[in-house]
């Protein structure tokens, strides 16, 4: 025998469920219980978190060809900022934002690289985080309007003001390199990538310095395609103008390359001339950086598994600097 139970119908709740939720990335309407956007496959958790906020978090696109080190860079960046909060303090929003950090750090501690990112957008890792900048660092720079105002306010209010000025929110996805290049070369293949390229406020473009130093031009060509696509999307075919989007070109795996760490821009001119030229002519705010996560790598022939590259030890260098630079471009300290 089935027991019948009548639930009271609350019009307010029904209306809430009926209201569409706009995807954070592509702004397509989705129903409230959808997990991934039906149009671009971005997680709807981002949209739900953004609903309750007055300021919309900004998106930073982490781009680069396959194997350039996007997953390792992003995972290590999150972990380093969590472990050493003197410069920047990062707080992940939502459990899904910690997955990438956990996967990357666990693998590297075992002297392995994390698994390759799948081309399925539903399996991509996303990070939504709050970033608190250290006020001590800000003190060394010209005082902002808020900090000047804070001097004349009561102590409790003063703390609130300064905290508000140093906390920002960012959303960063870890996309597959193949998907990025596929979308750049054949538009509308990956709608999520297209939406991210259109809506991201800043770009971190990662290029494998060890490949470039060996004379391979493929990373340079990939960078040229991505930069060209970014400029086209922003300027809608307009010529003669420069993009206002900030672009940080990060040469990765520089532990295997001599000279790159000391002068990344010179390295770019010598080994990635296409990307270097595109940046100079197409982007007003751009900078070159050098980064490495591992201190050494080698190739192993493992019986039954074939040949694979393994990290010998983890010694991160230059990971935080490009991110700090982008953050300064997105949220300048001197401005309220």
């Amino acid at each position: 025998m089935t027991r019948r139970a009548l639930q009271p119908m609350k019009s307010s709740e029904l209306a809430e469920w009926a209201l569409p939720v706009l995807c954070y990335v592509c702004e397509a309407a989705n129903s409230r219980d959808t997990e991934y956007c039906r149009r671009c496959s971005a997680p709807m958790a981002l949209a739900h978190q953004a609903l309750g906020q007055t300021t919309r978090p900004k998106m930073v696109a982490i781009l680069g060809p396959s194997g350039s080190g996007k997953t390792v860079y992003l995972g290590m960046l999150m972990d380093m900022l969590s472990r050493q909060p003197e410069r920047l303090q990062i707080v992940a929003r939502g459990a899904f934002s910690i997955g990438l950090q956990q996967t990357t750090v666990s693998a590297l501690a075992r002297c392995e690289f994390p698994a390759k990112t799948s081309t399925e957008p539903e399996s991509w890792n996303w990070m939504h985080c709050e970033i608190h900048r250290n006020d001590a660092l800000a003190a060394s720079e010209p005082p902002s309007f808020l900090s000047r105002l804070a001097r004349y306010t009561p102590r409790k209010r003063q703390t609130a003001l300064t905290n508000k000025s140093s906390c920002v929110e960012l959303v960063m996805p870890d996309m597959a390199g193949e998907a990025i290049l596929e979308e750049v070369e054949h538009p509308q293949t990956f709608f999520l990538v297209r939406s991210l390229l259109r809506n991201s406020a800043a770009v971190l473009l990662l290029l494998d310095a060890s490949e470039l130093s060996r004379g391979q031009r493929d990373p340079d060509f990939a960078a040229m395609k991505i930069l060209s696509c970014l400029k086209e999307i922003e300027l809608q075919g307009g010529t003669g103008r420069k993009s206002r989007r900030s672009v940080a070109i990060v040469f990765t795996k520089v532990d295997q390359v001599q000279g790159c760490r000391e002068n990344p821009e010179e390295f770019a001119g010598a080994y990635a001339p296409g990307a270097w030229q595109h940046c100079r002519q197409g982007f007003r705010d751009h900078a070159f950086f050098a980064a490495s996560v591992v201190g050494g790598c080698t190739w192993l022939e493992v019986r039954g598994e074939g040949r694979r590259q393994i990290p010998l030890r983890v010694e991160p260098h230059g990971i935080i600097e490009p991110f700090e630079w982008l953050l300064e471009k997105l949220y300048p300290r001197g401005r309220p």
Partner: protein
Amino acid sequence: MEKHQDKLRLATIALFCLLNIGFGLYAWQMPMLIGGAAGMVYAAVATTLGLHHSAKPAEAPLPSSAPTIADEQPTAPSDTDALVRRMLAQSRHALLLRKQVVGNLHEDQFQETCEQLHACMALVPEGDVVLGNTYNDAEDELGGLTSAMAGRRMHVNPLFLDRYTVTNRQYYEFVTAGGYRDMTLWEPQTWTAVLDLVDQTGQPGPAFWQNGRYLPGEEDLPVVGVCWYEALACARWMGKRLPTDAEWVKAACWPVATGVTAIVQRRFPWGDSLDRSRANLWGSGPNRVVAATEFPTSASVGGIYQMVGNVWEWSANDFHLSPHQTYGGAAPLKSIRGGAFDTYFDNQATCQFESGEYPLSRRRNIGFRCAIGTCDLVLDLPPSALEDQPEVELAECEAVHA
């Protein structure tokens, strides 16, 4: 060879004199320039000849070629004191205590040398050590790469190990004594590579030095930017050698046998948990190499400092792989141990963790310390008791290498 050098020298002097006489008072600058140029040409030729000369160890097993000390050594007994003092100042006490050399020392010199040995090096007693993961109940914490080493039990003979890593100041002595020119110190297969082991200004020396010497203020920092062969050559010049993996781990872990088969080892030189205030690692130091004497609480039981953190240390062995793994790279790696100022993970800064590096790599965070077996030294016998030993002239003891 000597004849050629004499002829060249005479020709240069003659040319210089002729030019000086030939030009008048107002043209005094020209002969100086020409004379200087001639001198430089002579120096270059002589250096080349000298290099070729020293690169034939088969003809000269105890060469008098490169080391400046050997050139300056007089045979008069009164100068032996000066030579001993100088060798002690160069931290070459192990060379003086070799069986073949020690007979040249007076009683007080012998005592002084022994004192310096004990001040600079710590005694690591004989015993067994387990390389790899010794925690049977723990999960595979060292990862797939190194966990296969678990349970490698090795026996270590008693040895002395440097209390501190070799510093820039000590390495400078090796460089100025002509260490890069004395080919007997180098592995024969690296002779062609030695010419390329230069600093930022093209002078022989570690990769990050300038003009053949370390940067100001860095004299007490561990020497870095040296490849495995440079480390080995310097150790040989000091009369020592590089420690093996088992020796290094034994000195750091200080194992204690609690039964016939059981061994208790430490994870870190000071205990089982990582105390970041005791080691210069990522997040616990200034993110650069610090002086070898800093972090005094990092000492192991035997009184050896900075075995964990600051700089990785070259070991004498090849990097170890498990039986089901083989190298896919170009060349085998050498083992490095101890972690450095930028080592990120705690489990990669333990005494057991082994990493690898190509033997010709000259990294910013790899240095070395030296070892010598007690069986190679004379420690407790007075020099007079060694009369039956075949003595080597002190002036020739430069050639008695490990």
